């Protein structure tokens, strides 16, 4: 199971969504889609048309910048970050 960390801006939008949880998925997009099953609408908050990560949402797999198709291993850490943006 991958160790997934979500941005704090996301949790108020989905009751019961933790900041940190475990997901079994082969890619970043699959991990997000897995979360979508339990918290409908979550994918829209991270993924734009394309599909592509929203422009100020960054993903890292084991510390390396990742895209939606980046593989996620069983023991990977996936960080989803709301980048410094706006004011």
């Amino acid at each position, binding site marked *: 199971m991958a160790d997934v960390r979500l*941005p704090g*801006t*996301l949790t*108020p*939008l989905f009751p019961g969504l933790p900041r940190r949880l475990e997901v079994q998925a082969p890619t970043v997009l699959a991990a997000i889609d897995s979360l979508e099953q339990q918290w*409908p*609408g979550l994918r*829209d*908050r*991270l993924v*734009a*048309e*394309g*599909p592509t990560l*929203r422009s*100020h*949402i960054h993903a890292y797999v084991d510390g390396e910048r990742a895209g939606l198709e980046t593989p996620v291993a069983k023991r990977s850490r996936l960080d989803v970050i*709301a*980048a410094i*943006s*706006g004011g």
Partner: protein
Amino acid sequence: MPKTLLTVATRKGTFILESDDRRDWTLRGPYCEGWPVYHAIYDATTGEIYAAAASEWHGTTVWRSSDLGETWEMSSEGLTYGDQDGRRVSKASTLARAGDRLLVGVEAPGIFESRDNGKTWSLLSTLSGQHGSELWDDPANQPPGHLGISGFVTDAGDSDSFFAIVQGIGAFETEDGGSSWTPRNQGLRRDWPADYEDVGFCVHKLVRSSDPQRMYQQNHVGMHRSDDAGQSWTEITEGLPGDFGFAAAVHPHDTETFYVIPVDGGHGRTMHEGKATVWRTRDAGSSWQPMRDGLPQVDAHLGVLRQGMTIDSHDAPGVYFGTSTGQVFASADEGETWSEIASYLPSISSVDVAILD
């Protein structure tokens, strides 16, 4: 007196102002998790509040509250051009109720509708094929502000009939629920070259009086009046301190009375001479009177955006406007006198009013 409720959209969430007498106001908020909100409305049909929002991080959505703002939900289900279209929904700019439809205007320019009060959305129209649409679908051609569809005027008696404004292009009318459109810009002034006769106008705000034939608009270049339901327009700027502004409101019971807030048309876009002023006509634009009593007259460099002024439906209507520096001003006597009812809100995008019986 029934409760008066103001729904205030700001760059940092939605706020509610409410009053039992239109003198003493209480403020609640921020709501919508502090998201940038571009237009918030009270929908008398459902009693719900809707807020069109777009987060830099989390994209575009429409928030809704069925308990006057105490709790909120959001949905963007269906609010997308899809993965293959090439266009992206970057912002929800404006909302309106049209019969059983809830409409939202977005950028890239398009209109989505919800038939279940904001839970799900589907694309209604992009006005494709209209003159200019080949340009407005190009992201590089979007005007500053990036509003796309920047306003609606709906018809309470006919849900298939409404106007939509394409920012920087002009106003269009549909009479068949968005299947076909007709440009409604005849007689408008433009001070720039354009490729087409019927589009290429910068309509900032469109309002309809209690007589559907009588409409008004604040344009990038001039205030205008229509006496034939928007089919043609006559400029009524003379007597005002400038021809540029965003906000406009029409008296709910008197088709001759219309309010505007002229602002500097350059980069500043604040009220002229630092004097906060709402201008009112009582004769359909033949003459204008400045309404300043109670408004700051020294160093008041206030801006008001296109959804930033509204008017209630009391016998003696109250007029309200919110500024880009976070003040809300209210008049309970048709603009004769004003008071500041909120002072330190975030930058205000819209003010909407409802009378709750």
